[in-house]
């Protein structure tokens, strides 16, 4: 690794450097994200799993929505075919790709605004069809790229540039939406649990059907600096501190998540503004859309159609 002055030389060797897009192009580590952002972790995990699982780049296209994470291409595996799509439309584009070439398994990167805001309808119907693909929802609870506006996932009582007083809307829960819509693999984790994330990702790749993985990720620049770490722990009545570094935000995320098996024993009030993590559903035998459609094609192409 050619050492740029901004990175200390004692920094450990980046194991994914030779595989990442920027690493292969420029020969150096390159990230376009703010300090403390979680997308770097996600990008590296994607690259690492892509390399470890020896995924065929021709069959696992990366469909990227619009958001901060659109810049993840510098970290993503150099071989994977990537397309930057429109805001919120990534699930619809992936549907077209999968159906026109059923051998493919699109991997969709989308954010909370992308997937639960503008593209909410596409997301619901992707889950409803149980189309074979992996969809990641990166939930940092703000619109980061445009400068920290309130998102559908912004926690109640949080501050953002469009909710300068406080957020008074109820947040939307991507997991509940995916479960109701009928996705066959639904899981949520955080960037503070990278090994779990890797495990879920590997499981999603081998799963036949829609896999929805929500990742809670910190946005220090626009969420952390404006909000106190007492968010999600209102019932304790403690005074919070500003979350102005990545460490503080990761610490807050770790404290603010509840495991699925613990959540069963907690009251509604205690779970308010908390993130429940874990595997919500895993149904490997649910009918998958492209396979079902292939049956129709076979029937119609024989004598059944006429």
């Amino acid at each position: 690794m050619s050492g740029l002055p901004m990175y200390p030389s004692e920094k450990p060797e980046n194991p994914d450097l030779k595989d990442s897009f920027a690493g292969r192009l420029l020969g150096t580590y390159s990230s376009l994200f703010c300090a403390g952002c979680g997308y770097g972790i996600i990008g590296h995990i994607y690259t690492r799993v892509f390399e470890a699982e020896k995924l065929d780049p021709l069959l696992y296209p990366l469909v990227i929505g619009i958001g901060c994470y659109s810049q993840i291409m510098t970290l993503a595996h150099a071989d994977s075919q990537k397309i930057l799509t429109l805001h919120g439309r990534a699930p619809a584009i992936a549907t077209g790709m999968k159906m026109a070439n059923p051998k493919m398994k699109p991997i969709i990167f989308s954010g909370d605004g992308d997937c639960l805001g503008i593209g909410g309808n596409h997301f619901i119907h992707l889950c409803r069809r149980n189309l074979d693909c992996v969809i990641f929802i990166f939930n940092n609870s703000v619109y980061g790229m445009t400068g920290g506006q309130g998102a559908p996932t912004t926690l109640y009582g949080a501050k953002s540039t469009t909710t300068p007083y406080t957020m008074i809307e109820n947040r939307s829960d991507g997991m509940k939406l995916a479960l109701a819509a009928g996705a066959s693999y639904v899981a949520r984790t955080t960037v503070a649990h990278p090994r779990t994330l890797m495990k879920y990702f590997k499981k999603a790749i081998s799963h036949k059907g829609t896999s929805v993985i929500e990742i809670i990720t910190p946005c220090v620049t626009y969420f952390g600096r404006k909000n106190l770490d007492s968010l999600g722990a209102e019932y304790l009545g403690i005074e919070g501190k500003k979350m102005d570094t990545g460490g503080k935000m990761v610490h807050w995320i770790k404290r603010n998540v509840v495991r699925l098996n613990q959540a069963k024993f907690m009251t509604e009030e205690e779970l308010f503004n908390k993130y429940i993590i874990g595997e919500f559903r895993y149904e490997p035998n649910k009918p998958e859309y492209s396979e079902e459609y292939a049956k129709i094609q076979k029937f119609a192409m024989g004598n059944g159609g006429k």
Partner: protein
Amino acid sequence: MSNQDGKRFLPEGRHLMMGNEAMSEGAIAAGLTFFGGYPITPSTEVIEHLAKRLPEVGGVCMQMEDELASINSVMGASLVGAKAMTATSGPGLSLMVETISMAANLEIPFVFCDVQRSGPGTGSVTDPHHNDLGLVRFSGNGEFEVIAIAPMNCQELFDLTITAFNFAETYRCPVFILSDAYLGHLHEVVEIPPKEEILKKVIKREVPENITRQVFSYLDKKTGEYVIPKPPIMGTNYVPMFFFHTHHGPDGMVSPGGLKFVQTLVDKIKTNKDKICITEKYKLDDAEIVIIAYGLPVRVSYRAVDIARQEGIKVGIFRLVTVWPFPDEQVKEVVKNAKAIIIPELNYTGIIAEQVERVTPLDTPILKVPKVAVFHHPDEILKAIREVSK
């Protein structure tokens, strides 16, 4: 996925078909393998017909959750090498323009059937009204050119759909078929040509022999002409480094600058106008009065011209088959010596009349014959002919 030849072609000969069905059959003959749509009157028969027909040829017909999803799924399918199309009407088109703009940027080809209905807004759903051309030619944000073709009968809906697919493959831009509520629901006899003849015409989607990273259009400085490579196919090695939306160069990354990028998108169509612009002439050789029309009003004008000729009025028709890009040079040639021009258009503002005015000498009178939500009676055009011939 390949379009299976077994049931792809209808038996050669005469078939009674609805306009929307003829268009669908034309698309299947051209190699359509993916259709993403959302029901909207008057285009609904297209998705209904294709839902039955496409699985028979190994294709996919999907009813998506809305127009936004249908056009995006079409773009996704086209990205992985399927010939794809969608069909909608005015209100659906307004929702789809976002993706059309992006497809123009990334030069993803697809065909778009707009069965126009009377607007604005929801309007009147079963009445014809050529009011979408303004939206079609400026569809989406940003600067780019599109191709719009206006058939006038069911036979042409079949034939010109194949042409539209060929244009999309060759010029890599959104191609529109401008049908309307009457034409879509019209039942007429369609002569299906033999299979070999159709196959000879169709341009296939395939990976070129010499794979390079130069997958987007660029100006060849040596010849001064625009090179339009075959569309990239995801899932093969023929892809750019990255499908990126900013001003991109031929490899998808290195930008030649904003101006050159937009120039490429616009001029790759404009410099090929002679191949794209299809026009037809009817009794125009000695005509003093010229009728310029496209779509259904042309058929009405034939009758009016025949009656006027019997009365000794020298009148002819100049028909625009390709409505956009507007054939400036050809129209200039036609209107040069005309005494008067009549433009019967199925709208009030005169979207094409505006273009004709642009290329007509200032002293030549132009008479618009507007009509909305119902097609012209030949008498109305005849009245206009008599008026200007006085």
